[in-house]
């Protein structure tokens, strides 16, 4: 392991970290703007040109606010909750292939922090750790609304992780790999997985909405019933971390959806016009971010369109609809993959 390699990797880590932060920061701005536009309003436009400094102002506000830790709370866990939440949101960015490899002075530099061959498993492991942040935070607050929100969050996330995992199994069957880099590389040109796995994509997207606690699955923090949900007792930057973690999750989910089903950094027909591999890699990053931003927009678009589910509807959808559907998807995928063998079985 050369020092050059270490520098390149740490540079990439810092870059991904900073980009994640900036995107999450401006997602809050975009959310407010999109919400405003969808409701025929203008949205924040006072801080800086077009209100572009609004996220900074919000951040300053969050830091300046009084920090209240309830006397009856479990202090250590109370602090641990948001820390876990934001930590595991950041960790997921490590396996996303942000672009194909860049060639600088004869050596290849992959634009992925860690090309682990079990990338999907890693992703799932880290995402399910995110539940702990919410659960611990809600429990440590010692408040019934927080606890109810936390219980809702954990049961919701656990339920939808099953369907999500099953929908991914069908994808793994067709791609034959668990590495995100390979999945992205396989989708060159028009071979996007959405065309092979439309039902799987639908299930995955619905589960992604549920996993990120976004509307219409935002029951853990529904204001109408639970005051604020699991973060009712939180204030200052601890609350900021929880809210920020949600936006980071949204960013990473969009990146994962783009990588799994929409070709990642690939764009059809582009190889005809651009032949330099480095330029292609840079363009790939641009395309990936364009796709990510589109999905972030979709997340917000859905939030400001659909009303929230009732809790029993949520559980019905998860267990009685999505899980059977994803199982059916696996069976159909398997049948199509083994069609020659099945055909020969009948011919004999």
């Amino acid at each position, binding site marked *: 392991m050369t020092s050059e390699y270490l520098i390149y990797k740490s540079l990439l880590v810092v870059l991904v970290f900073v980009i994640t932060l900036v995107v999450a920061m401006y997602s809050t701005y975009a959310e407010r703007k*999109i919400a405003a*536009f*969808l*409701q*025929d*309003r*203008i949205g924040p436009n006072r801080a800086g040109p077009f209100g572009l400094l609004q996220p900074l102002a919000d951040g300053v506000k969050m830091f300046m606010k009084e920090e209240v830790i309830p006397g009856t709370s479990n202090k250590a866990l109370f602090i641990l909750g948001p820390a876990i939440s934001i930590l595991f949101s950041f960790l997921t960015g490590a396996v996303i292939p942000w672009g194909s490899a860049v060639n600088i002075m004869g050596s290849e530099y992959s634009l992925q922090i860690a090309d682990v061959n079990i990338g999907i498993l890693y992703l799932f492991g880290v995402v399910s750790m995110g539940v702990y942040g919410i659960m611990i935070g809600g429990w440590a607050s010692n408040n019934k609304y927080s606890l109810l929100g936390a219980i809702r969050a954990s049961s919701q996330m656990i339920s939808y992780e099953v369907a999500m995992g099953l929908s991914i199994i069908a994808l793994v069957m067709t791609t034959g790999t668990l590495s995100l880099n390979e999945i992205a590389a396989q989708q060159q040109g028009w071979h996007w997985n959405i065309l092979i796995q439309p039902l799987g994509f639908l299930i995955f997207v619905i589960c992604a909405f549920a996993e990120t606690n976004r509307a219409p699955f935002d029951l853990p923090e529904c204001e109408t019933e639970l005051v604020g949900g699991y973060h009712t007792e939180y204030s200052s930057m601890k609350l900021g971390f929880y809210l920020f973690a949600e936006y980071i999750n949204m960013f990473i989910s969009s990146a994962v959806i783009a990588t799994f089903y929409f070709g990642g950094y690939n764009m059809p027909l582009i190889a005809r016009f651009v032949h330099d591999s480095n330029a292609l890699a840079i363009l790939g990053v641009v395309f990936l971010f364009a796709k990510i931003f589109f999905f972030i927009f979709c997340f917000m*678009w*859905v939030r*400001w*369109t*659909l009303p929230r589910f009732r809790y029993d509807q949520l559980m019905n959808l998860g267990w009685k609809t999505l899980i059977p559907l994803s199982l059916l998807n696996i069976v159909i995928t398997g049948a199509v993959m083994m069609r020659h063998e099945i055909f020969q079985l009948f011919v004999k």
Partner: protein
Amino acid sequence: MQLTSRSKVVSNKTMTFKERIYLPAIFSGMMITLSHLFKKKVTIQYPEQTRPVSQIYRGQHTLKRDEIGAERCTACGLCAIACPAEAIIMVAAERKKGEEHLYREEKYAAVYEINMLRCIFCGDCEEACPKEAIFLTDRKVDSDYQRKSFIYGKDILVEGIEPDKRVDVSKRETAAVAEFKTHKEYDHNKVLKRNNK
């Protein structure tokens, strides 16, 4: 009784498959919100833009001066009696020699205060005034942090002497209005009589 032509009879029928998968409905709903993305925004950016108001809008009052700049108000108190919100108080004083250019008649209001938090901007004071002294204008009452600053005295209410500081009330002080005021059988005059009893 049918109240509207858009009423729908609610039925409890079982949903069709298309309705049960919800996706077409979700899609059409999202198209509706998407169309709003491009619609004209209704927001009025307040301090920079203001909503246009009618020229006979009933806003902040003004106490008029006559042509030479003397105050028209004679502190008769009819506006205070007419006021349903009891927002007006005044203290009358006698005009001294040499003050003819300041006050039009022998009696004037030394103190004239309107509590803008009590005022309901009905315009009854204006209607009651026999001297064409008080008018409501299309100006809005400024906001403030303290209640006591909403008791407007003569320093705010009386218009300036200089021609450019005069408040234009020509839209409210029309010949038709003056004609209307001369009719003693109309309600506004009857109310005053009743109160005077």
